[in-house]
């Protein structure tokens, strides 16, 4: 099982593997928004937490379809399904690898990008906390969506469509956490909710995703 995690990380670090690109994407979204919205720092700092969360979510999304698709196409998934590892474990490891390659770098880079969008310094810590609590859920939900769509060519957009509504609660609580933190209000509720969502998805979704994979392999 650890073998799977370390292989996926090795693949991500190899040429063309895309490690750190989630980060680059996140950076670019943050740079693009002011081009669209205009450079006034008051507006920017108002919308900064929301934009950062939406950006994190999209960076996640863009790399999702490859969670299982590559293994499906080259036949590894068939072989993994007949190997002596539970498919639920495979799903969990794939989601973990996805988080390490996209979620984690985003958490670490968020403060820098916050500066670019004139995010209030008080909000910075809350943003990092929120992303740290929330992004594992994004990866896990994404793995579930990827399992649902794995047999489809060009599944990428369908996948986004399936997954985005599932991301809404995480997004709402994440943005709320930053907003309240910045305003000096009580942040316990959104933080607890974020943690709860992450724990629940990590506990339950691997089973659903494994079931979906089994159907798609049939």
């Amino acid at each position: 099982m650890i073998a799977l995690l370390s292989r996926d990380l090795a693949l991500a670090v190899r040429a063309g593997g895309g490690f750190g690109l989630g980060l680059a994407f996140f950076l670019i979204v943050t740079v693009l928004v002011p081009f669209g919205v205009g450079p006034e720092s008051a507006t920017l700092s108002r919308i900064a937490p929301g934009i950062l969360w939406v950006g994190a979510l999209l960076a996640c999304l863009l790399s999702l379809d490859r969670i299982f698709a590559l293994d499906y196409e080259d036949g590894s998934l068939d072989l993994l399904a007949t190997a002596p590892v539970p498919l639920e474990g495979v799903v969990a490891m794939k989601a973990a690898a996805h988080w390490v390659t996209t979620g984690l770098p985003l958490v670490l880079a968020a403060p820098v990008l916050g500066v670019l969008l004139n995010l209030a310094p008080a909000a910075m810590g809350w943003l990092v906390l929120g992303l740290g609590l929330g992004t594992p859920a994004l990866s896990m939900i994404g793995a579930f969506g990827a399992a649902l769509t794995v047999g489809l060519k060009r599944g990428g957009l369908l996948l986004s469509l399936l997954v985005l509504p599932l991301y809404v609660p995480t997004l709402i609580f994440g943005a709320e956490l930053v907003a309240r933190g910045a305003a000096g209000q009580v942040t316990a509720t959104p933080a607890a909710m974020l943690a709860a969502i992450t724990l629940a998805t990590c506990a339950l979704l691997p089973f659903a995703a494994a079931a979906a994979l089994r159907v798609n392999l049939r």
Partner: protein
Amino acid sequence: MASLWQYANPQKFVQTTGAVLPALAVLTALALIAGLVWGFFFTPDDFRQGSTVKIIYLHVPAALMAINAWLMMLVASLIWLVRRHHVSALAARAAAPVGLTMTVIALLTGAIWGQPMWGTWWAWDPRLTSFLILGLFYLGYIALWAAIEDPDAAADLTAVLCMVGSVFAVLSRYAVNFWNQGLHQGASLSMDAEENVADVFYFPLLVCIAGFVLLFVTLVLLRTRTEIRARRIKALLARERMA
């Protein structure tokens, strides 16, 4: 006179640069130390900007080199596409991280300067913004080199990217200007004496610029030699496996 192209032969290139590099390195160190020490210790404060004007000795040379590094990569890419001299492609590859570092230095020193002067670390000023975009181009260029296994294919593709990217970089510069007027200083190193900064700042600045140019040349030569050797290692290992 022997053609300049003889240095396109990797071996010749490595020999020649091996001979000049030590001297070049010493010269670079001298110029940089002289310029920075002069600027940092022996120039007065500006009456408006106070001591922050000392940042100019890093900020402006880094900014200039960030742009010139990209120009050099563009020329080298063209040479590779037209004449297919490997040294040229590898020199472009070697220059990119240097250019990126210069961009980052310009951005960071600018940000640190902006905090006292404009009261903000970052503003979406056209010059700042277009530098950020330049940084993104560097990142993409470096990432593309790193992603492609076959060296010739990587050279071809990055050269195409460099050319298309240059056009779009200029276009972005224009677009960004159009979009926001900005806070940043205009050009002050012009030939027109009226507009120039005062001489006390000007001469040490020139020395610093010379230092950065030398540093760039030295680093690019050094890194190109490394790239040439790495490339040869790859070819030799591949052949050993074939045999």
